[in-house]
């Protein structure tokens, strides 16, 4: 092997090794918390920032939505099926906001552990189907699990 070619091979080997190390660092990062929003379990577990605004995501708990007396403020709970957090929001909710729907709210925790949101966004899922199919699916799901309503 001539020296020029050997040198070039060494350089390419170093480049490949460098890329491998970079991938290692990136994988290490993805194993940790790097998120657009926090889940209710993380908030209850104290992993979310105190005194700092952050985003909270979860499913709106069935039967939790209440309008307050001033007509604009809504109080509801979000869950990740393990923990729930109460959210208070003043303003217009998006079209897709309904019970059982995934939402992302931006705001701060107050001293009572209530999340005061200044923005509520609805996260729609990746499923597209006509209403009849959705109804049929839900029915078969209920029959399969032998119970009504959402997961406790």
């Amino acid at each position, binding site marked *: 092997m001539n020296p020029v070619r050997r*040198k070039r091979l060494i350089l390419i080997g170093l*480049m490949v*090794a*460098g*890329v491998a190390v*970079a991938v290692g660092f990136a994988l290490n990062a993805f194993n940790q*918390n*790097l998120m657009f929003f926090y889940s209710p379990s993380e908030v209850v577990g104290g992993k979310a920032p105190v005194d700092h605004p952050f985003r909270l995501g979860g499913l709106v708990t069935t039967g939790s939505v209440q309008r307050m007396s001033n007509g604009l403020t809504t109080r509801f709970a979000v869950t990740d099926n393990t923990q729930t957090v109460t959210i208070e929001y003043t303003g217009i909710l998006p079209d897709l906001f309904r019970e059982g729907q995934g939402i992302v709210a931006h705001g701060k925790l107050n001293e009572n552990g209530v999340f005061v949101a200044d923005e509520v966004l609805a996260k729609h899922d990746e499923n597209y189907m006509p209403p009849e199919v959705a109804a049929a699916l839900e029915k078969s799901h209920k029959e399969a699990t032998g119970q009504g309503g959402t997961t406790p």
Partner: protein
Amino acid sequence: MKPATLPQAFAILLRRDLTLAYRRRSEMINPLLFFVLVTALFPLGIGADPELLRNIGPGIIWVAALLASLLSLETVFRSDFDDGSLEQLLLSPHPLSVLMIAKVLAHWLITGLPLLVVAPLLAVLLNLSGDATATLLITLALGTPVLSLIGAIGVALTVGLRKGGTILSLLVLPLYVPVLIFAASAVANSDAGLPVNAHLSLLAALLVLSISLSPAATAASLRISMS
């Protein structure tokens, strides 16, 4: 005379660039002054509410660092191109990509490292906490070399152009975005008392990736621009 080995050539090139920079000290100081001034403009423009400054401080410092680095980029190859020594460099028998590392290293020592020195001062001006300042220094140490490495590709592509400056920012800034996002949010997270390991790990990944790939891209771009 015996021809220089690769490590010798690397050292000679590095020392030459540092000497040149030392002779033109004002060019070295301008981006640094720019960095400080831009950061100081924000409290004047937005108002000096300490809480607000603390929230937007990480972003401001990083955007200013980005712009300062962009401003100094042209000096990597400009004078070498003007006096013809860049063409001499292309004729060297050593792998051009390794020599490019020397050029970028010199550029970082001249323009990136001083940012780290004044950053704590700016952190105080913007009311960042002690933890956040420490994280800011780590992110600058990991991030500014990435800026120099990526920027060198852009400069190499535009070195022969008359109006290279504006094009350069258009080419380089989109590629700077990941560094800005992860670095600024690492500092903001540490100010809020949250873990920052994930962000720092990603910045390290960007650094290693750009060290391994960008010198080759810079060398290839330079050969194309100079052909």
